[in-house]
């Protein structure tokens, strides 16, 4: 099988907060339509890695290419690139003063410059894909956490990004609401979206991920298909992390 094109290529990425080095030389390639899961203990740098991939955090060193464009080049239009990099946050971060539809269409209108009607149509379609077509005129506070996170996914998806980054998308949810978010992510994957997911949903990783990356102390310790990472982890640190998790 020929390898599909690389959508995200991270090389030699380093990031420090003050004297604390959070990312210590990360190399990671994500190919089109891949679902890559990043796991690791808290403080391992996985969220920071994800946030560097759309420059919410400014890396100190290295290279990040998204769809062939170097993100860290000062000449790169970061706002244009971010439209191609969807991001979903742990705390949803919906705009509380706007309706669900307005949340989804804001960037379509202001960043992509689409007209009101066109944005509305795209937004409605995105909401239908996350099964919330009937909530378009509700306000975020009227929705459950799971519904809010699905709106956040629709907001990112509506821009038709090349890749979507998920930063612990289910960590802030009550257990009974996790399923609806995961099933939307599963559908996205089915539709061929390229995704990088930082999460502790190991069951989801096991049956949906193409590849699992284990990070610890700012480095990628090992990576591979979920069967191998969960079934036969090579590295002692991976083994102890997964053992802690099972316990």
């Amino acid at each position, binding site marked *: 099988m020929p390898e599909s094109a690389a959508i995200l290529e991270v090389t030699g990425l380093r990031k420090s907060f003050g004297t604390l080095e959070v990312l210590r030389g990360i190399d990671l390639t994500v190919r089109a339509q891949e679902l890559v899961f990043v796991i690791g203990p808290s403080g391992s740098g996985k969220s920071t890695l994800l946030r560097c991939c*759309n420059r*919410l955090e400014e890396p100190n060193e290295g290279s990040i290419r998204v769809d062939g464009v170097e993100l860290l080049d000062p000449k790169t239009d970061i*706002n*244009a*690139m*971010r*439209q191609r*990099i*969807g*991001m979903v*946050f742990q*705390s*949803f*971060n*919906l*705009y*509380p*003063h706007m309706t669900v539809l307005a949340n989804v269409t*804001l*960037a379509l209108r*202001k*960043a*992509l410059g689409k007209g009101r009607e066109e944005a509305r149509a795209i937004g409605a379609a995105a909401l239908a894909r996350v099964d919330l077509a009937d909530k378009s005129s509700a*306000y*975020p*506070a*009227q929705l459950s956490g799971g519904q*809010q996170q699905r709106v*956040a996914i629709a*907001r*990112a998806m509506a*821009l038709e990004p090349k890749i979507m980054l998920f930063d612990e998308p289910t960590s802030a949810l009550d257990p009974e609401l996790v399923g609806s978010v995961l099933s939307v992510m599963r559908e996205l994957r089915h539709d061929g979206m390229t995704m990088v997911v930082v999460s502790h949903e190991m069951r989801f990783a096991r049956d949906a991920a193409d590849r699992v990356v284990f990070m610890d102390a700012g480095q990628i310790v090992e990576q591979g298909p979920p069967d191998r990472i969960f079934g036969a982890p090579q590295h002692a640190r991976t083994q102890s992390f997964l053992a802690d998790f099972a316990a």
Partner: protein
Amino acid sequence: MDSTTVFLDAFFNRAVIDKYLPDILWGMIITVEVALAVVATGIALGLLLAAVRSFRVRPINVLIVLFVDVLRALPPLVLILIIYFGLPSVGIRLSGFAVLWLVLSLVLAAFAEEIFWSGILSIRKGQWEAARSTGLTFLQTLTHVILPQAVRMTVPPLTNRTIAITKNTALGAVIGVPEILMQAQTAQSFSGNATPLLLGALAYIVLFVPVVVLGRWLETRFAWGRA
């Protein structure tokens, strides 16, 4: 005359009311004019300064903070007197109305800037990040996501501060602006009776109680459910 009659004659003198009520009403119009002008420019300037400050350009922010601190520290009357009586000696002559409007606008702008700024700071970082992650620029994020939320949160403190500062239109009496207090004082000295002053007080109540009530209504109106 018994004491009740003396009291009524001093504060509720019918003849004085009939004679000077038109002046007081005229003063109300002037007060409303100054107040509206102050609210419009003061709040607009305050919002503009807070927006500029959020770009965090150091030298500019030092100037903004300096402006805000100085205007919050100075009694408005001092500024009014300096500008009204001082500026003519360097060839700038402003009307009493203009001086009152200018000074109160600047003072309101200083307080409003602080209030808006704390509103902006209170918006969670995730709101900025979510908006920026969809490709919105800093300015788009500020105008569409941050300020609408910040402004709503600032309605109660801003209303209180606005009322406090617009009441200072009474300082116009010192520099000959024919607003309520000026009219009342003039009438009081002509009539030798305190009734006009009481009329003036009533005029302030008539003007500002509705504003206080409106402020309370806005407070509940803008308290939307926060997740």
